């Protein structure tokens, strides 16, 4: 079953997100706003359409999003 799960994940990476998405450059430009909206519980996906889909399709931007989210959240918890 894990083989099938791995295969599904590979197919998912090959096909990428189904939704319209931003590119890497636009993602970088808008990432700080998106993360702050997420942290205050606002609808970041509505405010910055296409960014969530890009994070699903781009592992590098996803990692940078996750780091920024964690860093800013940690700052606010101090």
């Amino acid at each position, binding site marked *: *079953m894990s*083989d*099938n799960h791995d*295969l*599904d*994940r*590979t*197919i*998912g*990476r*090959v*096909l*990428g997100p*189904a939704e*319209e*998405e*931003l*590119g*890497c*450059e*636009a993602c*970088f*430009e*808008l*990432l*700080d*706003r998106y*993360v*702050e909206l997420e942290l205050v519980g606002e609808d970041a996906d509505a405010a*910055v*359409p*296409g960014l969530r889909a*890009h994070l699903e*399709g*781009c*592992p*590098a931007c996803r*990692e*940078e999003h996750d*780091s*920024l989210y*964690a*860093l*800013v959240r940690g*700052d606010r918890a101090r």
Partner: protein
Amino acid sequence: MSTGAASVRVVEPASAVSPIPPPAPLDPDSREWVAALRGEGSKRDEAIARLHALLLRASRFEVARRRPTLPHLRGGDLDDIAAQAAGDALVSVLRRLDDFRGASRFTTWAYKFALYEAAVKLRKRAWQGREVPLEPESWSVFSSASAGPEAEAERSELLAALRSAIDETLTPHQRRVLVALAVNGVPIDVLAERLGTSRGALYKTLHDARRKLRDELSRQGLDVTEER
């Protein structure tokens, strides 16, 4: 950030609105940062020193997050990477200060430069000396995969159609980029460096390849809308 091509596909194209938000009023802390960095003399020097310390903290944060995946790197190497990332981020932030439009706090905006610089350097270091699989035979990892004896017929059909679509509808460059990034897991910054291009340009190629594959599978009546 040198990602090259701009957005892959502008969301909601009918609106013809840039995804970049209009300038917003700065919060007091951000206003103070920007004023000090645009100032002169010792006030500016002191602000730059504070900014560098902030960026160094962010780059060290990124290094610490990735440290478990980099067991072959020594502490000194990681410290050097964090310092280089903070220095490069400082240059970028100062060069792009006029681009800060108050869509977030200044510190959040600045952090992303340091995290980006550190992440790119660490990905490249992790792949330093490693072969980047680009040759056609690396494609066999996926092309020979079996859906397993108990797999649904739907998955087998999708897999077969996907193999054919990759072989028949993509250009050689699209196939090479897709296989390296999506099948073999080569980090996009590493591939961009090896191919002499940018992250943004590579992602555009990947996006176009994915779109072709989805279109072809849809044309064949296969459901490619489900989340995987």
